[in-house]
């Protein structure tokens, strides 16, 4: 406030150059404090390591180590394993979830839909439930000792172990799909509201049915929204944390390095702050690169 008031009297031209920053401040200040500084700190930390002088319980010093932590992290077997795991997860879960979200959005948008408001809310409700609560609830539904669903399947002679090493990744995928489908649907639905009505009318006059209008008119028009949800999902997948962390308490199949984010958390808990920082930075770079590639890829297809 002070900085803007003084120049008013002194130099109106400087006032003009400062004004945007005053308006940006509510965004910029938290952004710098809670995003740039922590990221910068993590990067700085990832370039250092601990050294000890004077024996085991002597003094610890933090010294510059270049990219040694990065080399260490990448040499860990869990690094590639966890990356492959989330990549596989994303390859299957993201298309399933987005297809589901698109279907629901188109259904809600169609002329014949009834009780639109009600269903919009119903589909969105899972997103309003905190991730940990959702994961815990699903954990109970999966647990062979407690789940009514598993009991039912067993009585139908279907023996499944939803928490076993083969199924657990997809059990997690189910929770993520359940949580985020409604959220993605809402973004797509909002975009559909912006599709000009005359486009649909013109198509109808030309003899297009509801199917054709949905697939040939609506979907291409809301492509930016689809790309956006795709990027969000990609980022979310690489940062997968809550669900596996909660499932660790009930399943013997989730290790402490199951996903890259979980691994970074475990490293930090074991006082390997530098290595955890290096892993976080690598993860951020990989996520950024993938999102960028995805955007490039979809943009070219569009052009």
């Amino acid at each position, binding site marked *: 406030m002070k900085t803007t008031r003084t120049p008013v009297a002194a130099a109106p031209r400087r006032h003009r150059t400062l004004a945007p920053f005053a308006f940006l401040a509510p965004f910029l200040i938290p952004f710098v404090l809670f995003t740039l500084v922590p990221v910068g*700190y993590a990067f700085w930390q990832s370039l250092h390591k601990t050294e000890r002088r004077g024996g085991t319980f002597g003094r610890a010093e933090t010294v510059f180590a270049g990219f040694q932590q990065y080399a260490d992290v990448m040499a860990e077997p869990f690094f590639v394993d966890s990356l492959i795991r989330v990549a596989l997860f994303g390859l299957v879960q993201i298309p399933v979830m987005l297809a589901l979200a698109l279907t629901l959005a188109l259904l809600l948008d169609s002329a014949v839909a009834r009780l639109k408001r009600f269903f919009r809310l119903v589909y969105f409700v899972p997103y309003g439930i905190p991730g940990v609560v959702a994961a815990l609830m699903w954990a109970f539904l999966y647990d062979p*000792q407690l789940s009514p669903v598993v009991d039912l399947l067993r009585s139908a002679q279907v023996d499944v172990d939803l928490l076993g090493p083969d199924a657990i990744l997809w059990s997690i995928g189910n929770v993520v799909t359940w949580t985020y489908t409604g959220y993605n649907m809402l973004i797509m639905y909002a975009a559909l509201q912006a599709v000009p009505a005359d486009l649909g009318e013109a198509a109808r006059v030309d003899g297009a049915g509801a199917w054709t209008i949905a697939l040939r008119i609506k979907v291409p028009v809301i492509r930016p929204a689809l790309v956006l949800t795709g990027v969000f999902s990609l980022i979310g997948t690489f940062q997968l944390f809550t669900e596996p962390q909660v499932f660790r308490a009930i399943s013997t199949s989730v290790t*402490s390095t199951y996903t890259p984010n979980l691994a970074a958390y475990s490293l930090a808990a074991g006082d*390997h702050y530098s290595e955890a920082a290096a892993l976080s930075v690598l993860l951020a770079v990989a996520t950024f690169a993938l999102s960028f590639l995805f955007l490039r890829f979809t943009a070219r297809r569009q052009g």
Partner: protein
Amino acid sequence: MAVRKRVSVTRRRSVVRGGVAGGVVLVLAALTACSGGSDDKADAAAGAACEPASGKVSLDYWSWVPGMQKAVDVWNGENPDIQVKLKTTPSGNAGSYQNLSNALKAGKAPDLGQIEYDSLASFRLKGGLIDIAKCDGVEEAGSKFVDWTWSQVDFGAGGEDGVWAVPQDTGPMALFYRKDVFDKLGLAAPTTWEEYEAAARKIKAANKSQYITHFSQTDPNWFTGLLWQNKAPMFERNGDKWKVTVDRPESREVADYWQKLIDDKLVATDLQGFSPALYKSWNDGEVVTWISAAWGYSTIRDNAKATAGKWAVAPMPQWEKGQKQAGNWGGSTTAVLKDSQHPAEAAKFALWLNTDAKALEILNQEGGLYPAAKSGLELPALKEPVDFYGKQPIFDVFAQASGNVDTDFTWGPTMTDTYRFLSDGTAKATGGGSTLGDVLKDTDSQSTESLRKQSLDVTD
């Protein structure tokens, strides 16, 4: 004696200087919002003199023992000049240690904190503890505690290496078993592991869906208790040199034994410790024993209500007939932390809290703690028969076990990692992908690597 004392005084002095310099650096680093520069936290920094302060003193204390406030209230009533402010925190690895580490880094740690035995070395490694050996009454207090607990807080050096905390409670281990199930099958409480295995086979043969126990992946410290019983410490410390001894003949004996039970499907491997699924299995009688610590009596009592009166407690099965060895699972200390301005008063409170008859009774009644103080084992409540366990005076078994815990068990300074390696490896083993023997081998090499990454002098 005199010579040694002088040497230690000069060393302490230089250390104090280092500590002050480090403090300045830390403050500077914090100011530039890019701290972590020099985590210069020399050992024993403030523990040099331990002079009592004059005037009123206020102490902050973090603990997660239920009912601790009542004990603190008693102290505050009796000591108007030393007022303790309690903050109740989540239990150790569930958040407290992370919070404590961060607070230590920021220079805002409380005066006193609850730290479990297995994490004491790692907090000392971080320079988070104050040596209270010179504080009033600490050295004499050694004999008041169960032997093995004191060797934990003085790092097994008999006072040559300082005293870093006051023992609070312990978890001597024994065998909880469903007496009715054993009786029906004509089984007595197994006294050896061989008999335990035979019982496991008999139970399984009688009822296909019944297991003698569960083998949890999330309780690596439980498995460590089993290793402790067989005198298989995971670490050896020789001055500044560390040696990882996770993979050794004694631990292999334990691992191979349990691997056999897993292979023959005699133990449940899909139940995690302290999970609702486990409790259901207890209630349904599908899991009929638990090798656990003294504090475990309330875990069963509160979560397996349907089986009231049917459980009993016997000493841990032994590796050789006639032996009397017990493991230990859990237990905490009260430690004075780096930033405390009043170590003398803090140590005084810690000693009172863990030796005073009234305090011990409150902690036992409210928090279910099994005391580390020898006098605590004589509490009236620990002599009484317990209804849930068929009116058996179960604490007699634990009192005996408490005296049979090996005093030479050394924790590593990176136990969080070692536990993680153990539990990740166990996941693979119970999933059929490897064996517990492999887990020991891998945990051994991974722990060595983790010590190396902390820049510690470690030999294979």
